[in-house]
């Protein structure tokens, strides 16, 4: 499972620790790493504390508290806190939904199952538009209905008490994790994030310098940079809950991320135009290169003149002007990023942009439909069997199918889950019948549980992408198979039946992911292309755009990362991929132009004229508009006007360079 996948699934062994691990190029497995042992021991202590509290409070299903600790066992405090909050919120919403479903459809079994499947599908749909722990919170709301409502399908009078019990065990687990994390000084997200932000900035500066010297860009390098930037978002979201200054730090970090994305965009614009510039290109390269050096040494006042030439010097409708504007933007955003790194350390208040994600609505709908059908078919079939114990299959099945819809590779998730459940079954059997073997005192239980928790904990902490997800799932599955209770039962029948039902759930997941509406790369590519064309048309329409410049830049980067992640198998797919990247460029330019015209805040005629020229994909009119904007002297600042001029000219250049895409669009619009 990839890093993104495990984050969406809300799984540990991912996030900062893994990123750190991979950055150091040490993807491997070491049993002797101190950080791994502290993580595993911490998880064991929190598990024991949660179980003790749950036994003391005489909660039913006390093993849920141990499972809750396993789910919240993530390497950093911020991530654990954030996940805990979404876990509490998701559980409460799921509990309310369970009460509503049972209250409304208790008397009609068919409607009950239909409503239950629809609720899970709705939550899966919402989760498809979110990422990280937010997505986990949304799917949790869905499968909580399975845990509370479906498990009591034959005993609706117990739904309320089971729901209260569930909320209580989760609170116990959350408090145990929080207290143990606080007392044991768990690493924070912030120091690692601050370092990663600065490293990414260095990476971008090196990329720009290389691009300027070789006059070409390496597509793989862009891919790597964009992926790194987009991945920072999840950790930034955890900052506000980590410390009292977290909100301010998160705002600064979001601004820094937006500045870096815009730096990359400007660098790519310069690269696209350099070949046309001849001598002016050399001057520009020299100026940008020196500008970057001076900014990094803090001597910005000596910034080179060619970058500050006005439109009058080279003509507003020329590539030279667009390239100069891109160079200015690049240096400005570089300066902005560096000043934000200072703000991050000092913790002074700042305003941060929203960093919207890109999610294809078609993908969300397909996910929801898959969840609906999977749960409907499974629940109906199990209900027809008429054996009350099989409702337990639905608890696990609903949870794993809901999580699987939000991972990039549901098939890999299902494989990992299958390995983990078999290992958890074996480990639980050994723990229950060989290690504990009838022991009934709590200290013995705590010691007996140590290998079952510390072992998978070490796998999680290894950060190895092959074994860490299995370790995470094992950590979660083991308490669910072991079913620790007070007093202990040591009944082999309960162990065998419970374990077998859990294994059946995972086998059903495996079948579902393979045969039920699997999403191929081809689907994803088609949805991304459609979304790009939809966004392009939105820029041509009269509707206002929903995001600002920073937000648009980040969303475009997120979408491009998703497009680049799809591996073309056939030459036709490779061609489509390249076409997709051209659409990324066109759509970004169209949005940039609309936003620039909006910021002019002057004569509304200009904005309408620009929009019409854009809608007609008329490069001549766009260039005329650029020339007219330069000559107009009004209250708009020089900066805003330059941006509008450059955006219009850049759009004209792209329209001329991509006649095929524009012709296709015109044909569609007619």
């Amino acid at each position, binding site marked *: 499972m990839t890093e993104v996948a495990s984050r969406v699934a809300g799984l540990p062994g991912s996030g900062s620790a893994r990123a750190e691990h991979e950055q150091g190029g040490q993807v491997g497995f070491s049993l002797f790493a101190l950080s791994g042992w502290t993580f595993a021991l911490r998880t064991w202590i929190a598990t024991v504390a949660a179980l003790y509290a749950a036994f003391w409070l005489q909660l039913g299903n006390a093993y849920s508290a141990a499972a809750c600790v396993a789910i919240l066992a993530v390497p950093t*405090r911020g991530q654990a806190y954030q996940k805990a909050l979404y876990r509490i919120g998701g559980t409460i919403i799921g509990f309310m939904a369970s009460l509503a479903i049972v209250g409304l459809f208790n008397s009609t079994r068919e409607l009950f199952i239909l409503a239950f499947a629809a609720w899970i599908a709705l939550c899966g749909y919402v989760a498809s538009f979110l990422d990280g722990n937010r997505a986990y919170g949304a799917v949790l709301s869905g499968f909580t209905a399975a845990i509370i409502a479906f498990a009591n399908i034959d005993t609706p009078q117990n739904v309320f008490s089971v729901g209260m019990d569930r909320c209580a065990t989760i609170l116990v687990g959350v408090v145990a994790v929080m*207290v143990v*994390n*606080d*007392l044991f*000084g768990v690493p924070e997200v912030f120091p690692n994030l601050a370092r990663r932000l600065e490293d990414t900035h260095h990476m971008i500066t090196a990329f720009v310098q290389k691009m300027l010297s070789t006059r070409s860009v390496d597509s793989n390098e862009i891919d790597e940079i964009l992926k790194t930037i987009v991945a920072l978002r999840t950790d930034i979201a955890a900052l506000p809950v980590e*410390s*009292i*200054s977290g909100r*301010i730090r998160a705002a600064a970090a979001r601004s820094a991320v937006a500045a870096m994305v815009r730096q990359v965009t400007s660098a790519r614009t310069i690269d696209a135009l350099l070949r046309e510039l001849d001598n002016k290109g050399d001057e520009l390269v020299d100026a940008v290169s020196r500008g970057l050096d001076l900014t990094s040494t803090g001597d910005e006042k000596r910034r080179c003149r060619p970058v500050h030439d006005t439109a009058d010097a080279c003509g507003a409708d020329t590539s030279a002007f667009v390239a100069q504007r891109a160079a200015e933007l690049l240096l400005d955003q570089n300066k902005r990023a560096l000043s934000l790194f200072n703000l991050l350390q000092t913790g002074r208040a700042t305003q941060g942009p929203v960093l919207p994600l890109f999610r294809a609505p078609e993908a969300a709908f397909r996910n929801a439909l898959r969840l609906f059908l999977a749960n409907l078919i499974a629940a109906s079939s199990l209900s027809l069997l008429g054996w009350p114990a099989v409702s337990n299959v639905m608890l696990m099945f609903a949870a794993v199918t809901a999580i699987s819809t939000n991972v990039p590779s549901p098939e890999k998730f299902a494989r990992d889950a299958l390995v983990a459940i078999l290992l958890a079954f074996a480990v639980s059997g050994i723990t229950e019948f060989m290690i504990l073997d009838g022991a009934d005192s709590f200290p013995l239980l705590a010691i007996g549980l140590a290998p079952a928790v510390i072992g998978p904990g070490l796998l999680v902490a290894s950060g190895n992408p092959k074994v860490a997800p299995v370790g995470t799932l094992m950590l979660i599955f083991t308490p669910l198979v072991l079913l620790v209770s007070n007093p202990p039962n040591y009944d082999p029948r309960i162990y065998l039946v419970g374990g077998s039902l859990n294994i059946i759930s995972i086998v059903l997941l495996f079948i579902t992911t393979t045969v039920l509406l699997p999403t191929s790369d081809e689907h994803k590519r088609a949805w991304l292309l459609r979304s790009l064309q939809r966004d392009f048309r939105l820029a041509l329409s009269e509707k206002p755009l929903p995001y600002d410049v920073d937000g648009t830049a980040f969303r475009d980067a997120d979408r491009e990362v998703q497009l680049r992640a799809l591996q073309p198998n056939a030459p036709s797919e490779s061609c489509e991929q390249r076409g997709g990247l051209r659409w990324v460029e066109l759509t970004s330019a169209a949005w940039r132009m609309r936003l620039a015209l909006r910021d002019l805040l002057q004569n509304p005629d200009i904005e309408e004229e620009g929009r019409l020229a854009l809608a007609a994909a008329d490069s001549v009119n766009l260039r005329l508009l650029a020339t007219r904007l330069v000559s107009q002297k009004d209250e708009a600042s020089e900066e805003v006007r330059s941006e509008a001029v450059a955006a219009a000219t850049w759009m004209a250049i792209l329209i001329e360079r991509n006649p095929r895409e524009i012709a296709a669009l015109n044909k569609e619009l007619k």
Partner: protein
Amino acid sequence: MMIHGFPELVIGDVLIAPFVTYALVALVIFLLLRRVLLRVNFESFFSNPPVALLSVYVTVLATLIVLF
């Protein structure tokens, strides 16, 4: 010696344990206090700020239990 009574909260015939009420009120007070603590740069006074913040919460909770 005066016996300390605990307020019981009943919502729709469901009895909420007094400790839950105290914990929630303490949480609200703690969240409000965070703004003040941010202004005085509270975290910079401690080598392990999370433990200090946890102690603040426990202090608020204990004060509520003793006083009300």
